[in-house]
């Protein structure tokens, strides 16, 4: 088997007495969706923040594309191809949809300190941006102001911006949250195809989505990963059932 795209090795993080991450190991292989589930307050977002570089772990390391990135900034990790979508949509709200995607393409290309040529007339950037918009199905909304988009469309736009980075891995923090049934279905279909291009580490509350999509699932409880395995493994794991799924799994 090939090396994982992303692997987290023995990460620990404590906020005072609260141990948000306890010796966590998790990896992401190419071609898979690896779902991270766990009850509220289990430390899922803390873990994602450490992987993305917004938080420094107390110990342990993050290896991405064969490189130890533990000491790197968020921006440096993004440039290496780690694309993150946020739990709460994080976009430039005053910009149009197209501007947000061009922003992604520009950031990835890196030549930001240019002062004279209009960026919105840059052919290469526009092409890359349009392609990303087509992939998520937002092409017709390109001239809309981002603040006018619905919640679900903002989610799609975040994914489109992430796509312009031509990422090697996605970190997605609850992309389905607040999407509604139809929106969730569409996004699920999209992620299903995306995994073959770029593996996804997915935090998600929607159990149906997780069970339908994930190749592997890790369960995080009180900062500790209590189980990792296939959908069936997790469904039938007694530890998981008692700790997390509870009665819901039997229903």
């Amino acid at each position, binding site marked *: 088997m090939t090396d994982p795209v992303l692997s987290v090795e023995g990460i620990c993080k404590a906020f005072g007495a609260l141990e948000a991450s306890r010796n966590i190991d998790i990896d992401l292989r190419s071609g898979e969706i690896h779902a991270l589930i766990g009850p509220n307050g289990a430390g899922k977002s803390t873990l994602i923040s450490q992987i993305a570089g917004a938080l420094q772990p107390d110990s342990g390391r993050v290896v991405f594309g064969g490189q130890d990135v533990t000491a790197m900034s968020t921006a440096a990790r993004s440039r290496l191809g780690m694309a993150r979508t946020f739990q709460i949509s994080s976009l430039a*709200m005053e*910009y149009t949809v197209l501007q947000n995607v*061009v922003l992604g393409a520009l*950031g990835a290309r890196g030549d930001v300190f240019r002062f004279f*040529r209009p960026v919105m007339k840059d052919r290469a950037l526009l092409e890359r941006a349009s392609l990303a918009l087509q992939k998520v199905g937002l092409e017709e909304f390109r001239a809309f102001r981002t603040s006018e988009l619905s919640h679900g469309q903002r989610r799609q736009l975040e994914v489109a911006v992430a796509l312009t980075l031509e990422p090697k891995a996605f970190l997605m923090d609850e992309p389905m949250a607040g999407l509604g049934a139809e929106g969730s279905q569409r996004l699920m279909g999209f992620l299903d195809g995306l995994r073959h291009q770029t593996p996804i580490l997915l935090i998600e509350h929607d159990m149906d989505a997780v069970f339908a999509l994930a190749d592997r699932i890790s369960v995080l409880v009180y900062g500790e990963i209590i189980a990792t395995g296939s959908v069936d493994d997790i469904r039938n794991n007694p530890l998981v059932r008692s700790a997390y799924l509870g009665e819901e799994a039997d229903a």
Partner: protein
Amino acid sequence: MRRETCLNIALLLILLVFPLWALSVDEPFLITLTTRAVIFAIAGVGLNFALGLGGLVSFGHAAFFGVGGYAMGILAFHAQSYTPLMEWPFVIEGTKSMLVIWVVAIIVSGVVALGLGALSLRTSGVYFIMITLAFAQMFYYFAISWPAYGGEDGLSIYVRNGFAGLNTMVPIQFYAICYAWLLAVLGFVYCAARAPFGLMLSAARQNEDRVQAVGQTPYRLYLVAYTISGAITGLAGALFADLNRFVSPTMFSWQTSGEIMIFVILGGVGRVFGPVAGAVLFILLEHVLGGLSAFWHVYLGAILLGVVLFARGGVFGLLTGREVAHD
């Protein structure tokens, strides 16, 4: 054509035609008044580059305005007293050439902005406002207590500095220089706002997480913006000193920082031409209200309150609605 574009062109035309009219009716004072407005506009455009695009509320731009002013004052002072600026390790003479003075003012104030920015930009919000204010006050008190260049009394320069082919003591000719600089600075800011840098900087103002997620560092964007902003305001300082043929620590005072910010807010934060409208309006109010009452600042304050409470976009917001450039 978009209403904002119309307003921009109208502003530039007014600033072109009004001094020519003043010249034809032989009112040199009005030309000088317009020159003041144009120089203030340049200072405001400088601040707006950091404030409007990058959201950096700098309450210390007097530091750069003053540094530009003293760059002119010190160079011209040494030229008129025939003393070298320094003799060791090499001799630097003063100069009465505007061209040299501008270059020095732009570079020195840019470097100062880079240094102050590198420190100040580690903070944000209210702390950033306070630290920039504090730095400007340091310059103010330093200028007051430095006797070599006049201390509290400032420096008088007897003859305005020279520019090839022009008699700069003629108001309309000096005005032409300032107007040309305003056009150049506006042109630069207009381009930069639409260029890759402007897109990324403005995104950082809206959402720093987003900028980091696309692989860029907000701090670096802010620092470059702050440096350019300081350099532009420094240029305005050099022109202002030349207009008055006088520099004093007042240029460093926090009131100066406040006035520069008033130009931006009156005109419309984030609009390229906003500070131009703001500066013109400010000079107009100063002239008209100042003629009515010695307490004209009270009325200015009331108007400013009105703008902040009811017309957040300033003059530009009022006249063009909420549309913002998205091309």
